[in-house]
């Protein structure tokens, strides 16, 4: 038996570069980086080109082919965008709903006990106010939000995956906290559609409308479809969402007169008033543009950090080179922009920056990950690069 074991020989297996990239993506990545390139043949700080455009599928986009009609009546999409970056394409469509102002907070509270969302104006003491100010004020009252749903085409059906949920959550938080949308902007100026003495349709607004006591706001929904994933998606999803929002047009809303007199059940027992009985109707043609806060429009850049522990070591050809990490090794961290491919996607150390290109940041996320510490130099480098990128890309929105 012992003889048999001695006869066993270890054979070297040779992988072609493409095979090695599949089997051991991290080794391929280190090899590339030692050579001064990345697997995508970009330089370390080279960004990927991104094509940003409106998708032209919203209700108000006039189609050249359908010359008879000005609007596409079938869809409630009010803003759209399409982004292509390398092999990944993203389609973002925006739609909206209407919600009674006092109701939204209550319902969100029930759904999620989230600190941002609980609005309690009654017993606000000074201490709370201080905390509020640190957190950026009463967010839900000042900043509008978007409810994004991400769908990544993976060729499977089933419930949303972790990544899809995580991305949606992050996008929601980013839009809410960055204050991109002013909440006032989402308020609906409900008009009352009526017929005057001459039989012409008129729309009353403001003080003329005594019947409408309740206030309404738009709720903005976004659906982002991602096809062909090659790297971290947040940058692209954020870009497509902002582009679609900048294309968004909110319809005019009015109340139908004949139904404005319908009463709903109120009282403590029946707290859930069925507001469906209000016949809120959108004007099919008239709209206003959704205004975004220009200074809050950011560009998101995600960086990955690679540690190279043994840059000085020469590879001995043919031999299996076992890298032993000793304290004497010169550690070097390299910042990579716009991660792409599996190996780069696996990097655990990341810096994600949202910059408006004018020296302001709305969000900086640093993921510590595994490996050596992230140095200030790397963070500085990331911030600078994101500024440059933002300056370059924001005009394209």
């Amino acid at each position, binding site marked *: 038996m012992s003889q048999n074991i001695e006869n066993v020989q270890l054979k070297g297996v040779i992988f072609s570069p493409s095979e090695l990239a599949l089997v051991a993506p991290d080794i391929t990545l280190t090899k590339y980086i030692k050579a001064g390139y990345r697997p995508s043949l970009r330089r370390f700080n080279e960004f990927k080109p991104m094509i940003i455009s409106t998708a032209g*599928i919203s*209700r108000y986009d006039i*189609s050249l*082919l*359908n010359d*008879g*009609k000005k*609007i*596409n*009546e*079938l*869809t*409630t*999409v*009010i803003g759209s965008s399409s982004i292509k970056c390398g*092999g990944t*394409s993203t389609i973002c*469509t925006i*739609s909206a*709903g*209407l*919600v*009674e102002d006092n*109701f*939204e907070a209550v*319902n*969100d509270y029930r*759904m*999620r006990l989230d600190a941002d969302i609980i609005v309690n104006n009654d017993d606000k003491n000074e201490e709370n106010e201080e905390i509020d100010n640190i957190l950026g004020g009463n967010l839900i009252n000042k900043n509008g939000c978007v*409810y994004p749903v991400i769908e990544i*085409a*993976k*060729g*499977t*059906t089933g419930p*949303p995956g972790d990544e899809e*949920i995580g991305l*949606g959550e992050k996008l*929601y938080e980013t839009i809410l906290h960055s204050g991109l949308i002013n909440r006032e902007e989402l308020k609906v100026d409900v008009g009352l*559609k009526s017929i005057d003495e001459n039989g012409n*349709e008129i729309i009353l607004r403001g003080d003329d409308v005594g019947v409408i006591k309740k206030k309404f706001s738009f*709720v903005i*929904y976004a*659906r982002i*479809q991602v*096809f*062909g*994933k*090659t790297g971290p998606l947040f940058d692209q999803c954020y870009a497509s969402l902002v582009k679609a929002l900048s294309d968004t047009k909110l*319809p005019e809303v009015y109340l*139908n007169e*004949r*139904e404005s007199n319908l009463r709903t059940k109120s009282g403590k027992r029946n707290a859930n008033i069925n*507001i*469906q009985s209000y*016949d809120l*109707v*959108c004007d*099919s*043609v008239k709209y206003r543009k959704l205004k975004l806060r220009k200074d809050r429009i950011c560009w998101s850049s995600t960086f990955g950090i690679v540690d190279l522990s043994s840059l000085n070591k020469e590879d001995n050809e043919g031999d299996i080179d076992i890298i032993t990490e000793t304290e004497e090794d010169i550690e070097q961290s390299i910042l990579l922009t716009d991660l792409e491919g599996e190996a780069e996607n696996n990097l655990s150390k990341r810096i994600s920056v949202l910059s408006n290109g004018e020296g302001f940041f709305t969000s900086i996320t640093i993921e510590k990950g595994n490996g050596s510490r992230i140095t200030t130099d790397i963070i500085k480098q990331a911030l600078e690069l994101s500024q440059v990128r933002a300056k370059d890309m924001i005009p394209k929105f």
Partner: protein
Amino acid sequence: MNTVDRRRRLGPSNAIPLSFPSVESNSDIENTSVSSFNEQKLFIQLSNIPTATGSSFLQLGNNLLLASVYGPRPSFKRTFNSKAVLKITFHSSPFLSSRQTESTFNNNNNNNNNNHLNSDIDPEYQIVNSVILSTLETACSNLILLDQYPKSSIDIFVNLINTDKSTKFIELLSLIHTAVNLALIDSGISVKNFPSSIVSSSSSSSSSSSSSSSQIFINSIHSDIYDNDDEKDLQNEELLTFYIPKSTNNNTNIKSTLKDSIDDAIKQSRALRSELSQFCYNKL
């Protein structure tokens, strides 16, 4: 009872979706756009999803469609499958107000209040998911050589991104089939022959009953047998699936016209096929 999706932020549950009253439609315009459906330019892009085995993007007017094929992938089911398992999913954008429950709003008719659901939507325009799925399943299982892929699964996804009011359901159906056909061709999965799908409207069948010409949808391939004579060769067409919408006027002579209209459809289908195969050939 509580069916709130807690995994994602879907917004407040009491939000009312936007409802737009329909604009007074000009029937003339609709008619002209319908008649020109088959003459509109079709934009095709293949292999636009790198992660899928095959994919196609189609645009015809306002209709935007994306079809993707994944597989054949190994399926680790306990039972042994001698054939590939085919799974087809059809998604349409949630923001496309469904034609079934479209609310209408009529100012002039004040008595007719509280009735948002318009029951008399033209059935020609109503999108029926079951028809889409059943025709797709029939067509694909007839088309793909499933025997060649034992113990595996093939997934086909169709995404309807946008459509408009002037596109009839049957026209949309043929677009969906074209998109799937092209995605299958693009994927390189073994198929019997080059498929093509078409909507053919045979005006001859119901010349008396004015405007409503009967339409027929077919998705077909050429069979293994070829004939030099073009007219005879029409018989060598293999139908993968077909769909005839329920017509409102009672056609007593449907049997006699069916053959004519299918022959007509096959002719058009072959014309389209030659163009599509030329397109795919050039892409190689």
